[in-house]
């Protein structure tokens, strides 16, 4: 290979690219958590908080069909556990469940477009709620599930779905900047 070929050859996806992608996900996850714990509370008064970490998990389920994607969803959930509630593992369980469902759906259906991502985030919010309630019911006593919870969940799902194109766009942009592969 001469110098010209070496200069213009596309970067082969390897450990470097995967590390860059991981760094993008970690930084985006931390930033999302920062927004969820501070800014969104200021904006919404804490009534409804869009779960940006969940959107990131859906992104992983749609784009990262490898062990790293599953591990990323678990770690994002674990990170969320550190800043939410008192039971460690609850969000890790919920986020991994969301990842698995999105992964299985995206293997069978063509999901490489924004509306599909929006739909998956909308459904993923309910799935996360279901996983949390199921885990809580298994480990703690859950009382008086009511229509109020469903309304909160619906509002959270709608808000998260509305923010999905923005989050997906930001992650895609970050991937391009980091020299990663935007699928």
């Amino acid at each position, binding site marked *: 290979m001469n110098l010209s070929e070496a200069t213009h050859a596309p970067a082969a996806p390897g450990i470097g690219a995967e590390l860059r992608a991981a760094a993008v996900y970690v930084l985006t996850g931390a930033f999302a958590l920062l927004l969820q714990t501070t800014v969104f509370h*200021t904006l919404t008064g804490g009534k409804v908080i869009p779960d940006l970490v969940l959107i990131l998990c859906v992104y992983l389920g749609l784009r990262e069909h490898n*062990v790293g994607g599953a591990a990323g969803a678990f770690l994002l959930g*674990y990170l969320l556990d550190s*800043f939410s509630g008192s039971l460690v593992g609850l*969000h890790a369980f919920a986020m991994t469940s969301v990842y698995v469902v999105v992964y299985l759906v995206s293997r069978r259906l063509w999901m490489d477009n924004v509306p599909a991502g929006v739909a998956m985030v909308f459904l993923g919010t309910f799935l996360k709620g279901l996983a949390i309630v199921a885990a809580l019911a298994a480990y703690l006593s859950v009382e008086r599930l009511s229509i109020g919870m469903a309304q909160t969940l619906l509002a959270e799902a709608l808000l998260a779905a509305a923010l999905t194109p923005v989050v997906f766009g930001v992650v895609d942009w970050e991937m391009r900047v980091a020299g990663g592969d935007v699928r």
Partner: protein
Amino acid sequence: MLEFVRRNRVLLSSGLLLLCSLALLSVNARHPGRIDPLGSLFLEVMAPFQRATSVVSAGARDLWAGYVSLIGVERENRSLRARLRELERGAGRQRELEMMNRRLKRLLALERMLPTAAVAGEVTARDASVWFQSLTLNKGDRDGIRPGMPVLAAEGVVGVIASTSPHASRVLLLTDPNSGIDVLVERTRVRGIVSGLLEQGTVLKYVKRTEDVRAGDRIVASGLDGVFPKGLPVGRVTRVSRKDRGLFLYAEVAPAADADRLEEVLVALPSGAEIRRSQTTMEAELVGPPDPATLGILGPPEPPVPTPDARPGVKSRGRALLGLPEPPAPNRGRAGGRQEPGASAVKLSRGRAL
């Protein structure tokens, strides 16, 4: 076999991770202490960023209120607008300081009532999810805070410390579904447990249907859980229902301390605990340089104290627990004697953990 594993590696690894999370859940649900190997690290790393983001978002909100809403006024009025903004900034800052001063004075009064030392902390962030209720404080291990310590506000019980890192800690609020506080109905001395719900709200649990509990009853800490001092306000019963079947009645409780509005709280330390002072005091973080106008808020100089060596804590604590009205408290320093105007605020920030 290897081919099967290779083809289904994502599903297999996801299954393994789901099992890991369930194992974490099981272990944490069974143990009273939080088993969280990385949580403390995450909390410590994120705490300064959360604090900075809180400051920036509050600044942006103020900017929006103070500047952007004024855009559009005629050009010839610019100098007047600038002057108006300057005055508004000053007045806003003064109002903020005045409110902060009142809050800190009430916290100081609470701290004097407590049987043990206490550390004051500032709320820097809130829960990342609507499902749970927690806060992040700017004080942690280095300030003597440990998991399980009670967190209080001037209005009453706030929650308990759930986890700590060297410079930050997380508070599990009374309104969280995983919390539970042993309480008494003040009027009838009926015992129960106050706990949060998954949906918004707090309930009084495990009270027999036949017990006398009414809307408006004050709920106070029983002290039997060994965490919260007896008699601290927890909330007020807002609705009682005996319609459902079962042994117990259903009573909704409005917490005494509104967690959404909390900015500063006290963490009560166990008796004999040593308090380490932070390098940055809350005075430097919150109050800034002493402002004569603000110090004046604390009121005129107090009259001389008739009995200088009487300890204020014991009597006022006893009165508070018995529900007696507080006598006009002499405004004294720790060593007793007369105090200058504004000394309370200075003491709150210099003394103890602040």
